[in-house]
Structure formats: C-alpha cells, structure tokens
C-alpha cells in the first residue's frame, strides 16, 4: 500500500499538523517536542500517509491526535505491542511510538523491554517528566528517591529507572537522550532516530509545569548547563564545561568513568574518551547512560548507541518470502486437503 516509488511531495511543518489544538497545559514541555517532531518530518523522506503514530495513555499519548498522519491512541502501557504488530505486518510504514515514563516503564514495562530486544524498527519517544501528570501528580518509575508526591507524602522510597540504561540493557540498537528545551539538539536526535533502522529509543526530558515544575532546571538553566550537560557526538572526545576543558576518562584500573580536566594533573585531550556510538558492545554506552544519576558527573545527552542489526520484521519477511519461493502459490483446496487424505465413494 505504501507508495515509495512515486515522487515525494515537498512538505512543510504545517503538513504534519492535524489542525486540532493540543490540549496540554500552558508551558508544557510537550509543545516544544511536537514542534520539533513536526519540523523534522518533512526531511525524513517518507510520505505523510506512510507515517503512523501510536501512543499509550498519559499526557504525552495525546500526541497522535495533533499529527496529520495515521494514528492510534491505544491503551495504557500497550503502545509498543500495537506498534510491533503493525510494523511486522506492514514493514514499509514508518512507525513512531509516543509514550511517557509511567506508560512505558510502569504499566508497560514488559512491552517496552520486548520491543527493544526484538529490534523491530520502531521510533519510540519517551517523554520523561518524572511524574504522573494526567492523574494529577503521583510518583512515577523515574521519580527520584525521596520525591514527595500525592501518593508519597513522606517521600518516595523507591529507586528510579534510568531509561536509556534500561533500553541498552534490553537490547535497543539506538538509544538517545535529549531535552524539551534544547530544541536544536532535540531536532538532531530526532533526525538520527528517523535514520536508524531497528529498535530506537529516545528519552526526552520534559518539564511538567503543573505537577513537577523545574524537574530539570538543575541541568537546563543557562547558568549551569554548560557544566551539567555532556553533549555526546559520535567520533568526538567527551568534553564539556564552560571552556570545554572537562572531560570523561575511562580509568582502566577501576573500570569506571571519571571526570578529568584537560591541562590539570597532566591530563591531555587524548586521555579523554572518544565517543563511539557504533561500538557493538553495549558496555560503554551503559556506563555513560548511568552517569545521569551520578553525583559529580554531567548528564549525557545525544546518541549513546546506534548500531546496525537485521530487524525482526526483515527476518520475519525473509522467512515468509523464502517459504513462498520454495512452495509457490498453493491452491486453496490443496492447502485444505494436505497430504494425508482418503476417499469415500
């Protein structure tokens, strides 16, 4: 049904707006995210009708209604299951999944990890505001320990997930992180996600101005962000800081990452780890993902991991096509009869 061989219309951002006014709270980070997605889509090389958005339940999951594509707003936590079925059934479609921290990691945790490990080509965007917004302010699986919410008035006793680490551990072949207020950065990450083929996870730090305002100000405020954010770029040294002198070094003795300053204690730039998102082994990507929770370390944003493997839908259809090539088009009556019949006269 997809029409890839005919020419692609020239799209603008407007072509991806459904015309329905988003019903998110004023100041919600979701506005910035949808803006970047709509900006990115004209350049992905796909026809509007071949792009599908599937979502679960939560504030973020209203997303498909505002996109002028095919879309389905499904059940809480279950979006990856619908999207997986759709993509395996129709590999020629480009399928995006929009989800949140509660949707993907609490009620939908099982579907999430399996979507990642199968390596179905799904572009999963997880809007992480570290709170349940639609139900008005309860603790989420990414809320920090001690977080006071309506259901944890004395503070949350539970350790949170680190979503990119979970995605890497689950076998995702593309894992990235960006932030709602870092528009240009988010645009680049979305472009990389669109170009990747395989299970594709992008965490987007998103501010909820009503129930968890300022969740990320400690890393996004103009005054701090240079020292708080580590902008990873494939093939470039992991440097950050106001004067770009701070860096991440791999300490072979402790097998840990450490913060160093170029020019201090004999540290030179070649000592700083060069980011390799294409590394097949996920260990380094996992270590980098875990820095986000570590005191004294910057929060990495950008692409942690981008490796190429055959997708589940490719393998599925290779098997189907091989079976078709081998057996040919069997007549329906022959199919029904099988090979072990007898006659009654």
């Amino acid at each position, binding site marked *: 049904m997809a029409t890839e061989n005919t020419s692609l219309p020239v799209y603008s951002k407007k072509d991806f707006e459904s015309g329905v006014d988003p019903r998110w709270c004023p100041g919600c980070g979701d506005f910035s995210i949808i803006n970047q997605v709509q900006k990115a889509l004209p350049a992905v090389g796909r026809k509007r009708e071949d792009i599908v958005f599937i979502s679960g339940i939560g504030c973020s999951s209203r997303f498909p209604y505002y996109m002028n594509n095919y879309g389905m707003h499904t059940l809480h936590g279950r979006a990856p299951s619908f999207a*997986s*079925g759709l993509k395996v059934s129709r590999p020629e479609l480009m399928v995006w999944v929009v989800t949140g921290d509660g949707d993907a990691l609490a009620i939908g945790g099982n579907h999430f990890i399996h979507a990642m490990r199968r390596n179905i080509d799904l572009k999963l965007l997880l809007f992480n505001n570290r709170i349940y917004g639609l139900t008005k302010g309860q603790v989420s699986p990414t809320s920090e320990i001690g977080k006071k919410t309506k259901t944890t008035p004395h503070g949350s006793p539970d350790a949170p997930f680190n979503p990119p680490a979970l995605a890497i551990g689950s076998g995702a072949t593309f894992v990235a992180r960006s932030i709602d207020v870092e528009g240009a950065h988010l645009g680049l990450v979305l472009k990389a996600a669109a170009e990747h083929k395989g299970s594709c996870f992008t965490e987007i730090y998103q501010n909820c101005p009503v129930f968890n305002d300022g969740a990320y100000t400690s890393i996004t405020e103009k005054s701090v962000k240079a020292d708080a954010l580590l902008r990873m770029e494939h093939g470039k040294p992991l440097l950050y800081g106001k004067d770009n002198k701070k860096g991440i070094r791999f300490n072979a003795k402790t097998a840990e990452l450490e913060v160093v300053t170029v020019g201090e204690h004999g540290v030179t730039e070649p000592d700083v780890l060069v980011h390799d998102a294409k590394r097949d082994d996920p260990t380094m990507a996992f270590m980098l993902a875990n820095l986000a929770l570590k005191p004294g370390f910057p929060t990495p944003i950008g692409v942690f991991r981008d490796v190429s493997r055959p997708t589940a839908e490719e393998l599925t259809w290779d098997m189907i096509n091989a079976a078709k090539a081998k057996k040919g088009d069997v007549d329906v009556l022959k199919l029904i009869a099988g090979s072990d019949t007898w006659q*009654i006269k």
Partner: protein
Amino acid sequence: MSTPSKVQQVETVTIRFVGDSGDGMQLTGTEFTRANALAGTDLATFPDYPAEIRAPAGSLSGVSGYQVNFGSREIHTPGDAPDVLVAMNPAALKTNLPDLRAGGMLIVNKGAFNASNLEKADYKSNPLDDEALKHAYKVLSIDMSMLTDHALEGSGLSSKETARCRNYFALGLMYWLYSRPMEQQLEQIQKKFGKKPQFVEANQKVFKAGYAFGETVEVGLQRYEVPASKLPPGTYRTVTGNFAVALGFATVAKLTGKQVFLGSYPITPATEILQEMSYFKEHGVVTYQAEDEIAGIGSAIGASFGGALGCTTTSGPGLALKAEMMGLAVIAELPLVIVNVQRGGPSTGMPTKTEQSDLLVALFGRHGEAPMPVLAAQSPADCFWAAIEAMKIATKWMTPVLLLTDGYLGNGSEPFKVPLAGELPKFEVKYQTTPNHDGAYMPYKRDAKLIRPWAIPGTPGLEHRIGGLEKDSMSGMVSYDGMNHERMVLTRAQKIANVVEDVPDVQVFGKPSGDVLLVSWGGTFGSVRGAAEQLQGQGKAVSHVHLRWLNPLPKNLAAVMKGFKKIMVPEVNNGQLAFYLRGMFPGVDPVQFNRINGKPIKIAELASKVLEVL
C-alpha cells in the same frame, strides 16, 4: 499354533490407550485413529493427558490417555465407556479401570507390573492376580516389555530406546485385533522416523511382533472388523479442532488475498493453533509470538489497523488478560477474531481438561457497554468453518468476534470432508480509498447497516486518528459530549444486533414440538445429539437444537422453544447458557444438566437424566 480366529463384525467400538506420560500413548492413539480413518470409519477422539510434561514415571498423576470411538455409523463423541482398555502400567490401570465397560476387554503390559510400579500406583498386591478382575473383564495379560526386548535383541539400541518402542507392540496387536492392514503403518513409521534408520527398523519390527502376537497367541483371540461408515462421498482427512482453526485462518488468507496476522502467546490448550499457523507462511499468514497475552491481542489489533486480518488465540486465563484490549477493538471498531479454547477454570484451574465455563465472560466480560459477536464451534472439523465464519463477520461488520472452542474440540479429532471449490464461501475484504464526506474522510460515518469504513495507513488523503477515547460519531476525534456518547453506545449495540442477518435460524433435530427440547452450544453437540438420537429411537418426544451463535442469538430460537413443555440445557459448566436464556427469554426456565469434571458429557448419563424429567 492356534487356528485363525473368525472375524466378528461390530458397528462401533471405543478403545482407550493409557500409559505413563513417556509411554507414547498419544502417538499410539493418533496412529490407530489414522488406520481407522483410512479404513473409512467415522470416528471421534479424546486425548486426556496430565498438565505436567513429565510427571514422575509410573505415578498416578503421570497417566496419559487417548480414547478413540470409531464405527460404521455416524459417530458423535469419543464414546462414553471404553469397550477396550489398553493399559501399559499399573498406574494407568488403576486410574482408568473404573471407566471400562463391564465385560470389556482389558489388555495389559504384564511386564510393567513390577514391585516398584505397583507401589507407585498404590497397589498392595498385583491386581493381575486378582480373580475378580478376570471375571469382570476379558483380560489379556501380555509381557510387552519382554516381547519388545526379544524383538530388538541384537539391534544395538539401548534399553531406554528399546522401552520407547513398546507402544508399537500394543499398536501392532490392535491392528491385528481390528483387522487393519499392516502395510500403511509400516510406511507411516518409515515417514515418521525416516531420518533415523535404526528407529525405523526397530519400530517396524516391534509393530510386526505385536501383530504376529495376535495371530499366534494360543488363547484363541476374537478378531473384529468395523466396516466403513456411510460418510458422504468425498476426500477426507483427520483434523483436530486446533489444527482446523489454523487451517481455517490460512484459508481466509487464500480466499481474500489479504494477510492474516496472528498475534498470540502460548497457553494450554490453545498453543497448537499458533504452532500450526507458523507453518502456513507461504499462504499469507504472519505469526507473531508476543511477550504476553495482552501483547498478543495488541499486536493483532495493530495489524488490523494496518489492514491485516488480525486474530489472537488463547484460553481462559489469557482471555481475562485480553479483556481491556477487546474493549478497545469494540470502541475502535476494528476487525479481529479472538479464539478462546476453553479449559477448566477459574484461574489456572485444570489446563488440560475441558470445560465450557467461559460463555458468560465471552458475552459480558468487558467493562463498559462492549457487545461483541460470539460463536462456538461444535466439533473438531467444524472449527475450520467457524474460524472462516468468525473472520467473515469481523471484517464485514468491523468488529472483534469471539470464537469459542474448548480443550475437547481443540485436541479431539475426527474426519473432515475436504470442501469442493464451490463449497467455500465468497470472501471479499475492501478498504476505503476515497474521501466519504465532502472531500474529507470521516472514519465513523456509517452505512445503512451501521458499518464504518476501513481506511488503512498508506492511503493518501485519508489520514485519521482513532483510539480508546469516546469518539465523535463522524470524525472519530475525541468527544466528551454526553449525548454523543449515548448515541455511540446505542449505535455500536445496534450494529452488533444487526449481525443477526448473518445468523442462520436454528434447525430442530426431531419434531418441532414435544416434551423436551435439548438446547446445547459448543463442544457438547456430539453428546447431546447422540442422546437425542437414542431417546428418539425409544419413541420419546425429545428434540434438539444446537446454538452456533450465542450473540446475536438466532431469530427463531424463542419461537422454537415455545413448542416444548420443557427446555433442558446440558453444559460442561455450572449453568451459564441456562442463566443466559432465562435473562434473554423471560418465562423460559431451563432444566439444567451440568457436568464440570473436565470431560465431555456422556451420552448415557444425559439420556437417563432426560428420562427422569420427561
């Protein structure tokens, strides 16, 4: 040497093979079934096996059985009480002997009645030495273990491998007893073990030894012959219900030229449908083994959104998990077939035992107003037709459809007449490709039957969004308007009610009026039809109607029921159809006949119950 026995003709016979889980009784049963099918008898089978894959060897809980009823007249059920019991060890004898008909034939593997096995079966002494046993039954006690060992002397097989061949001794003996030609079984062994020549030879040898034993044994065994039945002429194969469902779905893919997408999760006793369909890739079937029951149905709905013919297969506990998803398919109005192979419940219940206890959950087990067409297959072969019918209704009416089968139908087998070209339904699936409302696409704009159009991704200009929130009755956009919601609830209900135009009237088996009308549904068809035949043969004013459609119910059902003094509903549950009929037809108060013992209803027990209420 004994003189060759005379062959006695019999009309029907029921044989049960029982042994340890590792004794190969399922294989023996299916192979013997095949021999009778090839000989042209009608038949029905009932495998009965433990939930444990390998319960402790020789234990009472590890007994596995396979019952086959075959005959020269129409066979409705796997038979009430076996005429012949083949027991391969003491535990099998202990658990099955009470079912053997008085005076029936008991064939035992004497060699397995050693001290250790007797103890595991809780026998204080060897039951084969019991004179009462020999008086009650025709006992044929054979040391199959030893005879198998002898047959395979010098074969180089280990003692474990030798033991595995014993079931072919029993099979060979049954071939001789029931006068079936050896040749086709030898070929079958060749086919089955072809890749391991040493096993081909060994199993053929043991099979021949069993056959020869019958011929040469000096006790003057009676030989039987069950002639071919008068089944309608045609080409036949045997199918289990689970295989028939898979075949039905693959046939739908062929007939429509559309992809059938099965999203499923393994669960007893439904797993075989997923397994079988994974072999139908070349016919346009895509199978997807999901991470859980919810994702099984979710992936199928996702595929349906994309234009595939989505289906999912499960059993009771899985159906419970799919409930929320079914509600989404109802409100989104996407085609989908959910196959529920019912088993003993609640909870994990009795996974390998049959039951009909999911009728009410099928009809009502979703939150909100969420009606859905529900139909039930009546026999293993009928599962083929029911799968096609369910898919046809789902795509025509844009709705999920629930197809109920059960463990007995799923695992049971019977001859299936392969349809001729003209006997397959015409089946066309169409998508909306053009705007349907002033140049725009309104996904919930309906036709006169209240059916909405189906536009799928990849279709330019018809981009739209749907979901689980209540929708505007035209655009499908989110609507919280109360009046719109009421209109949508009533419209969806009316649409499902309209499906009645595709529900055939019930046919009364017997006179249109009388003393008792037996009303059944699903897998009890054979038992109830068998009882009705028997009672009618005795001149009783008893008729039978069988419900294929549970929602909507057939138009003429109320009128048919009025013709009888009493309505009686036999079910393998605690009275679910009876409850439903009371609610649907005020004034109708059926007499219930309920069995919840994990087994199909016996014809004799039902017939005697009917005589009681007459």
